């Protein structure tokens, strides 16, 4: 086992024994995960293994049935009053989400707003920031994701790759501490994957803490500090990408990697 590159201070994300069921479908069965500031963690696993559900639990888009999730030391979704948990109000949960950016597989840009309005909406309406300040930041962010020329376009006029880059800029406009990516390139035509991964690489290099669900093995190997392989709602194997991807120990990991790599070669 190699030691992860960055492990300084307290973890930014501290998930302990997280479990979650949809009716009688036990999707997460005791997940532990620590993510340290500046780390890029890649979640791997076959379809249906619970990766999406897990990262949605981190920002409370799903509620968990067991365990605890802390982000920046704060318990997500509940107030701990003398050992008794009280569910937080909707407004309080909304406040907890402000520091966590999320990028979805299907972009989910607001189609009735222009690119610039998409990026500016939340800082102004949620944080109550000054419009001028936000506009400057939004324009800078659009430049950073390579879309400086598209502020007035509507999402429907953009390619999938451009939309996903706007979605990244929109999340960054809230100046989050943590970014969650749920298969950000899976809905893209193959020739558009690279432009989105390039933005994510740049973001990782800038020191952003990221949890990324992806099947892009190149990205995982080159960018991530830590890879977690999940199957059936449990963490099967985790560690440095060179170990987990380069020299997997478990049969299930080997099988999964063989399948993904075969797809990559055929595709």
């Amino acid at each position, binding site marked *: 086992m190699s030691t992860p590159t960055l492990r300084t201070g307290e973890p930014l994300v501290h998930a302990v024994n997280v479990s979650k069921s949809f009716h009688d479908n036990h999707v997460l069965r005791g997940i532990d995960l620590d993510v340290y500031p500046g780390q890029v963690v890649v979640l791997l696993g076959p379809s249906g293994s619970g990766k999406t559900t897990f990262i949605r639990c981190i920002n409370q888009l799903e509620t968990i049935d067991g365990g605890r999730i802390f982000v920046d030391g704060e318990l997500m979704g509940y107030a701990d009053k003398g050992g008794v948990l009280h569910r937080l109000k*909707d407004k309080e949960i*909304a*406040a907890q989400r402000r520091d966590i950016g*999320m990028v*979805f597989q299907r972009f989910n840009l*607001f189609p*009735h707003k222009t690119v610039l309005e998409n990026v500016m909406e939340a800082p102004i309406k*949620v944080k109550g920031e000054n419009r001028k300040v936000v506009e400057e930041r939004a324009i800078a962010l659009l430049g950073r994701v390579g879309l400086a020329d598209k502020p007035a376009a*509507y999402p429907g006029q953009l390619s999938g790759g451009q939309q996903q880059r706007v979605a990244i800029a929109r*999340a960054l406009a809230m100046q989050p501490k943590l970014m969650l990516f749920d298969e950000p390139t899976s809905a893209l035509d193959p020739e558009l994957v690279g432009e989105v991964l390039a933005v994510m690489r740049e973001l990782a290099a800038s020191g952003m803490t990221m949890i990324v669900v992806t099947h892009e093995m190149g990205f995982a190997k080159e960018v991530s500090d830590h890879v977690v392989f999940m199957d059936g709602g449990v963490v099967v194997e985790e560690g440095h990408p060179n170990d987990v991807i380069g020299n997997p120990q478990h049969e299930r990991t080997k099988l999964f990697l063989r399948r993904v790599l075969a797809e990559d070669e055929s595709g």
Partner: protein
Amino acid sequence: MTTQTMDRPGEINARPVRHPGRWVAVAIIAIVAAMMISSLVTNPKWDFGYAFQIMQQSSVINGLWMGTILGTVGSMILGVVLGVILAVMRLSDNFVLRGVAFVYTWFFRAMPRYVLLAIMASGVGYLYNKFDIGVPFGQQIAKSLGLSSDLTFFQFNWNDYSSTVWIGILGLGLSEAAYMAEIARAGILSVDKGQAEAAQALGMSPGMTMTRIVLPQAMRVIVPPTGNETIAMVKDTSLFIAANVITELYYQSTLFGSKAFKIMPGFVAATLWYLIVCSILMVGQSYLEKYYGRGFGAPTGKKRKKAEQKIIAAGADH
């Protein structure tokens, strides 16, 4: 590319399909139209000159503005606001809210507007002459505690408002809310769930998510049927007489016509005003549709079509 040769088939110069049925239909329509025009110009009882005079009477114009138009605007505002609230209640997790919205919609969709207006005007005033606004059961509580005040802050007399346009607006607005609730619900459901999730992930509260993200997109589906509802409402204000509201276009025009024993010109005056008002509304509706369709290109999404069909089904039983 090959060059054109003699043995390759050339330009198509086929005979068109004949439609003899169409020509028969055109002939019948032409005859009927000729009969109608002949009646209009030869029967002096039409008296269009008098109809135009009626249209310009101050009592008729006043009825048009203060009854028909004010009544339409007022009851549509009430109907839309209450309808959206009911739609949000129908989609809430709270079963009490869901139940209340369901019962409301059921009752007011089953209730004829004419009967409703009659009840609003006379029935309510018959039951309760005065309304005391204050602490619930305040009078009973005050009596049992022996207080001098009866915990009433404000009192108003229902009969002061019956036979005014406000009763008409209240009656038609309450009824409209039931239909608008179905329209708004279909609109909200037509918005992809990912939209609300993206808004929540950005830290928006449920209320802000609804008003800033979901409802503006739902508008694309809500506006066209709401335009139809508004046009229908213009016509339904002619039911105001059920609530003894006489400041209204139809009543005033026909009153003027019958006073002069010129019944048909009275009807014609009302009809022409309804045609004018509704035509203006139809133009306005098409502008609104364009505005709320921005960012979506041609409005041919599968989702929207489905939602519209639902709405048409919901609205068909007026």
